[in-house]
């Protein structure tokens, strides 16, 4: 997703000299082409995320469109109050981009696991929150977020993420992409876990269970219409996110369902339980322990549907 992001950003900058890219001393073998082509619109501010965010707000107050890029929780939690007061309160044209969403940094350990960002960023007024499902979405999301006048958060996974979309989807902020049709249940995924979700759906199809898969790349504003439509048409909703079960996609969808008055929906959240990783492992290994592997998702869906039929 990283490469798709920077390609898309370079294209943006070619057509819009307001585009700035600030990095917090990261981006090795990624951001160099941007820095070389647009040296006056690039700054490596050093390892100083609070300052980076304030600078971005200051630039935006001077009519720049500023992308901040860093890794893990550094561009969000480390400088959260700057995001709230300097970026969101001013409704400033600042886009925060984090690489390593979810458990992408696996064995680097829990300091580098990005597992509360969606919940926290979602709580901010004026903030749009996007977690693209694959590199295709990441490129489109970068373009789309640039079209917003105000703040945005873009959660990327890593390098070499699998491509889910074989054809360019219609990407609109706040509109879920239907990746797969089906009427037995709806799997709503956000971020890089979309790939495992689609694979789980294929496995379920082999068992005769046809699930709809939505890529809910935009967590805020949430596509309420798609959630309600899926609830009506499939009767069962499972949310899948590489994120804490508290406050992210599952919570956002639950809020919609709870207020919808349709209480006969079977509903389940799959995500990270309220804890830090207690074991060391690759992303794949950690996902397996959290029911976020293809097997884990498949089983969780199956058991929800089994309960429903009883």
């Amino acid at each position, binding site marked *: 997703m990283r490469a798709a992001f920077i390609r898309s950003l370079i294209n943006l900058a070619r057509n819009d000299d307001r585009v700035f890219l600030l990095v917090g001393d990261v981006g090795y073998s990624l951001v160099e082409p941007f820095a070389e082509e647009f040296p*006056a*619109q690039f*700054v490596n*501010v*050093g390892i*100083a995320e*609070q*300052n*980076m*965010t*304030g*600078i*971005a*707000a*200051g*630039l*935006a*107050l*001077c*009519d*720049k469109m500023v992308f901040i890029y860093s890794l893990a929780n550094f561009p969000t939690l480390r400088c959260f*109050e*700057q995001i709230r*007061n*300097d970026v969101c*309160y*001013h409704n400033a044209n600042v886009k925060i981009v984090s690489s390593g969403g979810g458990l992408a940094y696996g064995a680097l350990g829990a300091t580098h696991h990005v597992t509360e960002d969606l919940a926290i960023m979602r709580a901010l007024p004026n903030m749009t929150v996007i977690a693209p499902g694959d590199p295709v979405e990441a490129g489109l999301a970068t373009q789309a977020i640039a079209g917003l006048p105000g703040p945005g958060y873009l959660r990327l996974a890593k390098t070499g993420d699998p491509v889910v979309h074989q054809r360019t989807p219609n990407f609109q902020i706040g509109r879920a992409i239907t990746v797969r049709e089906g009427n037995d249940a709806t799997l709503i995924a956000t971020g890089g876990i979309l790939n495992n979700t689609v694979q789980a759906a294929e496995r379920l199809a082999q068992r005769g269970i046809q699930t709809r898969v939505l890529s809910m790349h935009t967590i805020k504003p949430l596509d309420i219409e798609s959630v309600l439509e899926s609830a009506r048409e499939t009767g069962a909703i499972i949310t899948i996110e590489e994120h804490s079960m508290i406050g992210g996609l599952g919570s956002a969808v639950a809020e919609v369902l709870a207020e919808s008055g349709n209480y006969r929906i079977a509903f389940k959240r799959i995500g990270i339980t309220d804890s830090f990783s207690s074991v060391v492992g690759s992303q794949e290994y950690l996902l397996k322990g959290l029911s976020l592997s293809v097997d884990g998702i498949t089983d969780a869906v199956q058991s929800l549907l089994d309960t429903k039929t009883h």
Partner: protein
Amino acid sequence: MDNMNCSDARIARYKAFATQIRAHVLRMTHRAKSSHIGGCFSIADLLAVLYNGILQVDHTQPNMPDRDRFIISKGHVAAAVYATLAERGFFPLEWLDTFYQDGSHLPGHVTYGVPGAEASTGSLGHGLSISCGIALAGKRDNRSYRVFTLLGDGECDEGSIWEAALFAPHHHLDNLVAIIDYNKIQSFGMVKEVLDLDPLAEKWRAFGWAVKEIDGHDINQIENSLQNVPFEPEQPSCIIAHTIKGKGISFMENQLAWHYRHPNDEELQQALAELGVSE
């Protein structure tokens, strides 16, 4: 002799303006039962010079691209800043009566959207980074404006100030001026006792700023320093203004309590009398 008279007249004008700000602040905090008078009074003389002889701003064109920017990083001195902006015509003086009140346009910390206010502040340690961004934009766009940022001494405890202090010299932001209201008192005690900043000038110098220390209540010194920025080419400027919290009112000077208290009726009368202002 003409020069002398002219300068005297200018100084008298600054002083009268500073007195106006202090009088407004007294009335505003009295009416609102709000706080932070002490810090408002330590910067009143600085504001008077900035807004009457230094800043290239025009209340009829508040968004003029080449205007100088003034960022108040210690946003809790909103009463003094609003009084200044109102006196300079950015919004009607009557608005000051609504400070801190239900339904007002003027909250207790300086807020973007109030005419003339360039940024929202209130959480300490944010203003210098925002100012670096504005100064950087000015450099990259070849604009002539300068950015003046007023910091509190207590807020220099915040690490983000020092992140920005590293950034500005590295990027040669000589269009940036940090003014530190060094009144030696912070929220819960003397700076020296809470978290000593001394030697403060040496710290800024070591970070790469061109530094001048002045008496922040001496109009000549204030004007002289502000007129001569940047002090060095290619370097940001830092003015350490030695000030007195509560300056101008005998019973408020150097009293921590006036970071919090608002004047009662009697104290208001006494303070206005000391300023030589009638109610």
